[in-house]
């Protein structure tokens, strides 16, 4: 079994599992009784999507696409910070 087939097989099998967990996260986004809950769920969703994007770029053989994952992770963090700042001080930028 060559490397290419192995990688493709394993990753193809994994993707439905990824999607299932995304759906579970999404349930928490919709349900989450409070704002921090929702942000937390989006947070985890974003981090896992970042990892998923990296994995997907191997599967579809476009290695150059990988930067997107980093981007998503970074700005999901930024979202955390904005909401945290609002909740904490009810003010932004000062």
């Amino acid at each position, binding site marked *: 079994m060559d490397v290419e087939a192995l990688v493709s097989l394993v990753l193809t099998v994994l993707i439905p599992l990824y999607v299932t967990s995304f759906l579970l996260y999404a349930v928490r986004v919709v349900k989450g009784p409070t704002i921090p809950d929702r942000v937390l769920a989006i947070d985890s969703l974003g981090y896992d999507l970042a990892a998923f994007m990296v994995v997907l770029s191997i599967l579809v053989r476009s290695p150059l696409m990988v930067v997107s994952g*980093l981007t998503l992770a970074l700005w999901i963090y930024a979202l955390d910070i904005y909401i945290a*700042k609002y909740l904490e001080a009810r003010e932004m930028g000062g």
Partner: protein
Amino acid sequence: MNAREVAIATSITLMIVLLAYVIEAGGLGPIAPEKLRELAASYIISTYNPWNITHSAQSLEAVTAIVWDYRGLDTFFETSVLFISIVGVALLFRGYREKTGVGGRGLSEIVKTSTKILAPLILIAGISIAIHGHLTPGGGFQGGSFIAVLLVLLSVVFSLDFVVERGLSTSRLLTLRSIGLMGVFATSIALLLVGLVTGVSAYVFQNMVREGAPVSMPPWFLDRPTGGTLLFFNVFEALAVATGLSLAFIVLSLRREEVEEALERGEWYE
């Protein structure tokens, strides 16, 4: 739900049903065709093509090549739209004065330190994305927005005062932004000026050698192609976008009293 809402909902529904019908009934052909549109194929074949340089941008990345070379005019004016909006925000809050020492606590020490460590990494990642815009996905705007969000993040995590004290006052941001914009403008007409001086014909936004216009930007830097103007465009655009967006954000987040005293009551008349 009053009558107006019903009317609006009905017309919107009508519109989207029509739209869906057009798409689904084959108005645009199959949604994902097997055959690439001819124009797209032309772009991909000519984006890096040393064998037919008169139609080429000498950039490995087709999207950046289209954005800054084939359709450079669009992007130039896109940058100007951003410029207009940012100056427009400055106009709305004109006459403000930045005050330092008002306070503002910022987030906890842990977040502050983490963001501090992140700062150079995000900065360099943004720069990397900007200068590799013609080789890998990315470009000036992408890199610039990376840096801009970093500055926004800093002003949120620490405080506005902190950012201003470290030298990013709005007037300095404005200067940097003007440098970036003038750089974009200069790059767009650089070869035209060269052509005027040397007496050969040249185009606005010209990059490589074109039909009847034999001037060209340097196609290579060391061992990689530069895409001619693309590298310069990307760098200047990154500078302009990063400073411009953070400028707009800082102006937007000014405290009420800072703007209040600048209001010029009676400037308008009935």
